[in-house]
């Protein structure tokens, strides 16, 4: 009970008044101000498939608040119901569009007022030929003719022919005689429908209808004159049968239609082209598809069970492992918060709310949710209607003070807590987090774009100034400790002497380090040699010295090779007696300033023979 108070959703108790049962799908539910009185009602198709009657039937039900106010039978099983405004005349009257089989029925004030049927495709030449012959030829030749048709792909035949092929011999003749004059054409059933706003995103703008048929065709229907204003195909081959649809944009400017097919493909259609472009293909079936309006990403739930997010180019942005099979998916546009949540209903009754990749809320219902709907209902703006598989309706209202924030830390913690093998795979394959661009970064980038030359110049000036300062500091440090005896009083005094043996080009440089103290040990010493690379090469320039005990001198030797020109076997011209020297530095670890810095003058090298 205490947790119920902290929840983000207020539960509206329908109670035992009259338990309303409603078996429906998300696409067959809509919210509409059908009576034009400002009270938004819930419209849903109640589909009864397991009735005692042989024919499955459907009813259009209208709920005012929690009460069933009206119901009327539908002439078939609907695939989708949409409420839309067709013009801008006042008072604005919504029109309810119900897609049944190959036609869309339009209702105004809940009275039927128009029926639109999608155009038929031209039939195959062979099929037309067969239908021309069938009525005039004798019955015994029919078998041969029908055999021809059986070779054709079943999906490419008209419904009339499909039915004929199923009939037995004696039923055929009567069927042929009754149907011989009807046109032979292939009509696609509407499998998905949604609204596309015509111009702006102002409240209740006039809309067009987007229809997708099982022949793979997509139409945009203008519901005033009932003309098709846009026609396209899902993709170049016929087998891609769309089942899910999501639309974004406005018809007049630009729009995008994303279609999910039955075999796991996702296709993107734009206004400019009329053939879909495959953007991704999953091996498992899709259960939900959304094109999110804000960041233009495509969210998909699959039977794997995964929750995946793709860019419009088909790049996987992230994926999440779900605990159970996703049943339906719903976008929740929270305009007052400026975010869009995605609700995913899972098998078993859990409904999860995602903000991008983060789980921000969760509802648990006693049963699997079959359909969800969100929007303004009645007088309240943020109402979520959930229908379970047994037909129970749950209504949840979003609390006004609710804020959804992507809690990255909590998400990571929960991910760690319930880490499973498959989850680890999902995480490994997801993309790394990229920090967001700060405003300073964006401003600087813009400034650099504008004044590229000047900013490059000033950067170079600053770089050289830095190098100059560094070089000056180095010289100062070396010069200040230029002696053969270390002057640092805090450590044991050390003396360095050098001796060069050999006549060239290979020399041997002997260094003697002597501890002048009587009781202190000189430890952690490093000898560093530095010479002009063009004049001398050294295989080893650095030596870590062992601890130098008082009185016992330490001798180290280095190999130095003078660089000679390969052709004339002479030292390079830049080598003069003044700069023919090697700098020796005695360093103590942890100190930036050398203890001793000395220059060893090198004798002139003899030519190598």
């Amino acid at each position, binding site marked *: *009970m205490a947790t*119920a*108070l902290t929840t983000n959703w*207020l*539960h*509206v*108790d*329908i*109670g035992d*008044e009259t338990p309303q049962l409603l078996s429906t799908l998300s696409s067959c539910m809509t919210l509409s101000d059908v009576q034009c009185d*400002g009270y938004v009602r819930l419209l849903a198709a109640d589909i009864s498939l397991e009735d005692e009657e042989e024919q499955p039937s459907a009813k259009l039900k209208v709920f005012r*608040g*929690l*009460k069933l106010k009206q119901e009327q039978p539908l002439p078939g099983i609907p695939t989708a119901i949409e409420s839309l405004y067709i013009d801008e005349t006042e008072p604005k009257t919504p029109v309810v569009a119900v897609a049944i089989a190959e036609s869309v029925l339009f209702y105004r004030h809940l009275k039927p007022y128009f029926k639109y049927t999608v155009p038929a495709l031209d039939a195959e030449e062979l099929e037309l030929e067969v239908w021309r012959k069938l009525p005039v030829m004798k019955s015994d030749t029919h078998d041969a003719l029908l055999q021809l048709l059986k070779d054709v792909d079943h999906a490419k035949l008209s419904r009339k022919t499909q039915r004929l092929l199923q009939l037995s011999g004696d039923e055929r003749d009567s069927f042929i005689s009754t149907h011989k004059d009807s046109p032979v054409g292939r009509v696609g059933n509407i499998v998905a429908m949604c609204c596309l706003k015509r111009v702006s995103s102002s409240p209740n703008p006039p809309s067009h209808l987007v229809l997708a048929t099982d022949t793979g065709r997509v139409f945009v229907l203008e519901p005033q004159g009932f003309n098709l204003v846009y026609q396209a195909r899902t993709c170049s081959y016929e087998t891609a049968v769309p089942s899910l649809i999501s639309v974004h944009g406005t018809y007049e400017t630009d729009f995008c239609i994303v279609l999910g097919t039955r075999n796991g493909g996702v296709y993107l259609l734009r206004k400019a082209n009329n053939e879909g472009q495959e953007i991704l293909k999953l091996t498992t079936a899709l259960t939900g598809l959304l094109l999110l309006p804000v960041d233009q990403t495509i969210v998909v739930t699959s039977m794997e069970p995964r929750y995946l997010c793709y860019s419009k180019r088909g790049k996987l942005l992230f994926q999440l492992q779900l605990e159970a099979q996703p049943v339906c998916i719903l976008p929740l546009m929270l305009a*007052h918060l400026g975010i869009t949540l995605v609700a995913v209903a899972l098998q078993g009754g859990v409904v999860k709310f995602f903000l991008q990749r983060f789980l921000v809320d969760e509802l648990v219902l006693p049963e699997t949710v079959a359909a969800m709907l969100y929007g303004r*209902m*009645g*007088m*309240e*703006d*943020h109402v979520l209607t959930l229908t379970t598989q047994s037909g129970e309706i749950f*209504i949840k*209202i979003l*609390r*006004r*003070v609710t804020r959804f924030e992507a809690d990255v830390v909590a998400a990571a913690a929960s991910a760690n807590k319930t880490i499973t093998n498959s989850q680890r795979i999902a995480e490994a394959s997801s993309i790394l987090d990229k920090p967001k661009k700060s405003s300073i970064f964006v401003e600087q980038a813009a400034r650099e774009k504008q004044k590229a030359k000047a900013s490059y110049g000033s950067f170079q000036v600053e770089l050289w100034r830095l190098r100059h300062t560094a070089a000056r500091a180095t010289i100062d440090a070396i010069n200040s400790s230029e002696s053969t005896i270390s002057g640092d009083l805090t450590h044991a005094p050390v003396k360095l002497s050098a001796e060069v043996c050999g006549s060239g080009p290979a020399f041997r440089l002997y260094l003697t380090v002597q501890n002048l103290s009587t009781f202190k040990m000189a430890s952690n010493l490093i000898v560093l040699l530095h010479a002009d690379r063009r004049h001398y090469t050294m295989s080893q320039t650095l030596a870590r010295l062992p601890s130098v005990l008082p009185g016992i001198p330490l001798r180290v030797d280095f190999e130095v090779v003078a660089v000679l020109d390969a052709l004339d076997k002479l030292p390079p011209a830049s080598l003069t007696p003044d700069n023919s020297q090697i700098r020796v530095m005695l360093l103590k670890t942890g100190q930036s300033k050398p203890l001793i810095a000395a220059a060893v003058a090198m004798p002139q090298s003899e030519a190598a023979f």
Partner: protein
Amino acid sequence: MGMLNNLADLIKVKKDKMTILVLGLNNSGKSTILNHFKKPNEQSAIMVPTVGFLVEQFYTMGVSIKAMDMSGATRYRNLWEHQFKNCQGIIYVIDSSDRMRFGKKSIECNCVVVTSFTLGLPVVVKDELDLVLQHPDLCNRTVPILFYGNKSDLEDSLSNVKIAAALGLDNIKDKPWHICSSNAISGEGLDEGVQWLVQQIRFAVLSHRKGSKSKHSSKINK
């Protein structure tokens, strides 16, 4: 008339002025209720949803009341809390026929059921009321709250006893409250409620003055 009023103002040295806040969900009838209190020539015939808030001024029972008519739409409800500081009384209007945002368990007026309902099943009316009562600007003040169970003429409206039980008004201990059913269109029950509210505010002002006076005198004694 204007002169007379001015004269009356001059004679009455201290005139009672009260600021009240009118809250409630959208479509509950706040503006319609205030419309009833206005002079006949100022009343408007058509009510439209309030945007933001409106300030209405009217005279009743010898007091000048400044009423803040707050919009009840979801996106304007966050404006309510800004008015809490300078209000002396609150009118909370409830649409007693709006079952969806109100919850229905209140039908059974069984105490046990009601408490479980009020704990576990807050709906929008209750939720918004709780937000108002828990606001820091109000929770430590004794601001009288008047509830109107509006639209009592509708057939499926709830009685004020049931509303009080459903909202758990018994739990409001630190503030005086009163509920009356009303019909804003005919004006039924409205005057009774405002009468109570004005009395309460007067009482609160008086007791406040007394309190400050006694404090004052005690200081002098010291």
